[in-house]
């Protein structure tokens, strides 16, 4: 039986009397880019934290490659965690370590490599993320916002994961850098056959990268393909995708698909 890469069933998250998720279901298939969208305070980050095992949900099942992580011990989780990579919103690079050491940290934890192998592999990941070689010796505080995102991506790729979680990968970037970053993610996704789950607010980014989108509304998730979700009648989804920017992007997309050169 083929499992979905990531499966969430009946997820419930509560903080005191405030219910964030109530029976949230989601399923991510192999080799797709899955976008998670939602208004502020709808619990996108809480969802990600639950999936990453940073907090236990009140109820529900979260399966990564078929294994339920909500009932795992720390040492079992450790093995699952070696199979995915994560980038956090602000990068969350270890500020006391250089970029190279940051990328090597997951390798030190999980792999048995010689110093030479570790150096070479880490440099490869750094170059793959589009950073210049001299960035490897720098500390996170010396990097620009765009470089921090790339360094975080390099660290997320350190263990050659098949599954990649990105928390607002383009937030805080100017539109040009954001587009470049999206292209990089798409390129890596194709080349490394990654499954990507990304939380994002950026409509441009969704239209550029995502195959399917899950929108958190009313404490559960509406999932559809990009084409399908824009026709979803839910008022929040309508106002999200059919604002000024959304309409412009939709128009671009439909003209692109009828033009003879479009694919």
């Amino acid at each position, binding site marked *: 039986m083929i499992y979905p890469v990531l499966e969430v069933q009946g997820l419930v998250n509560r903080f005191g009397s405030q219910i964030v998720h109530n029976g949230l279901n989601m399923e991510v298939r192999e080799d797709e880019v899955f976008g998670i969208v939602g208004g502020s305070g709808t619990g996108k980050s809480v969802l990600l934290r639950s999936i990453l095992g*940073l907090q236990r949900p009140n109820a529900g099942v979260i399966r990564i490659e078929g294994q339920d992580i909500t009932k795992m011990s720390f040492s079992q989780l450790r093995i699952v965690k070696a199979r995915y990579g994560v980038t956090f919103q602000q990068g969350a690079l270890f500020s006391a370590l250089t970029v190279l050491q940051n990328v090597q940290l997951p390798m030190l*934890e999980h792999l048995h490599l010689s110093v030479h192998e570790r150096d070479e592999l880490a440099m490869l990941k750094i170059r793959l993320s589009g950073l210049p070689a001299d960035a490897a010796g720098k500390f996170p505080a010396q990097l620009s916002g765009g470089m921090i995102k790339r360094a975080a991506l390099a660290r997320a790729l350190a263990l050659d994961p098949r599954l990649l979680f990105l928390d607002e990968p383009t937030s805080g970037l100017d539109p040009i850098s954001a587009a470049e970053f999206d292209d990089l993610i798409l390129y890596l996704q194709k080349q490394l056959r990654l499954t990507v789950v990304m939380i994002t607010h950026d409509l441009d980014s969704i239209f550029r990268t995502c195959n399917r989108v899950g929108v958190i509304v009313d404490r559960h998730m509406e999932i559809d393909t990009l084409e399908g979700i824009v026709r979803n009648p839910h008022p929040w989804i309508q106002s999200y995708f059919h604002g000024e920017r959304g309409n412009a992007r939709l128009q671009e997309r439909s003209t692109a698909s009828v033009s003879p050169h479009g694919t």
Partner: protein
Amino acid sequence: MLVEVRRTEQGLDVDLTGDWRALGLAQIDAELSGVDLTTAHRITLDTKSLTALDLSGAWRLHEFLNQARAAGAEIQFKGSPPDQLRLIDSTLRGERPVCVEPKPVPHEHGLAPLTEAGLAEIGLFSVREGRDLMAALAFLGRIFSTLGRALTSFKRLRPISIARHIYDTGITAMPITALIAFLISVIIAYMSAQQLRRFGAEIFVVDLVTIGVLREMGVLLTSIIVAGRSGSAFAAELGSMKLNEEVDALVAIGVDPYEALVLPRLFGLMIALPLLTIVADIIGIMGGALLCRYLLDIPITQYLTRVNEAITPTTFWVGLMKAPVFAMLIGMAGAYRGMQVRDSSRELGRLTTVAVVQSIFLVILADALFAVLFMEIGI
């Protein structure tokens, strides 16, 4: 002049002129309050010659118009009223969308408000302190369970990290520790010399300095300095790592932050503090020797002989064995408060302060307990 008033048979003609800005609000205020509103049935405002009107100016005008209406006057504008007034009106009337957060419904107890507030405050305090205690116990438990796991392999004890923390908390603290130990021994020697001279018992200054430094002062002052330096550093480092999501990133990579961040700091400090105490002891005794030589004319050799007579085999160890305990208290208070930081940099500052105050308090409390204990067992 910002306001020009002409009286006509129906009422007032008010011309607004010049800059109506927040910076000149005092003048606007003065001139508007000077306008006599009695007997004015109709006020006609002209804003043609206004050169600037910001929101503060418009608000003052709004207040003035309200006053005028309350006094029974009818307001008219020559031309259209300024847009700023409309903005203020629509905002105050709540026409613009408002971001609302659901508020908890207050309960009805039938108590006097002050009694209720007081009781609520006491209740909140108790619940908060109770939770804090539980969290501290949970932290302690977590430390020991992590310790159990980390002891299974040398690599998981993170020797490199421990070495770094010995350097940070120990080696770099040596100069200040030595200086403080020197000064403290000088103070003890000087104070006791003044008193003992009256009895011709100056030689006992040596006893006081030696026993005082070795048993109490060396380790206590070193611990207090280290609490100030390293307790705060632990809390601030861990706290900013939490704010920066670095701790989450570690967990996501599959590393236990208690194993990688907390334990090496505790071990580092528990190794560094006894070593610092030895330094403080040596410098303290040397300081006493110096003062005895020049103030009391006790030669160094006689001083050393007297030191040997003054101490018992346990004197040095009684002081030194307290050091790792104090180190553990300082390290735990710092790390615990650091790991508590969430959401804001204000929390970071607050908890860093709490960490320092609590670690110093705990050190002194533990020292008092040790004093009683040693007294009871007679060493």
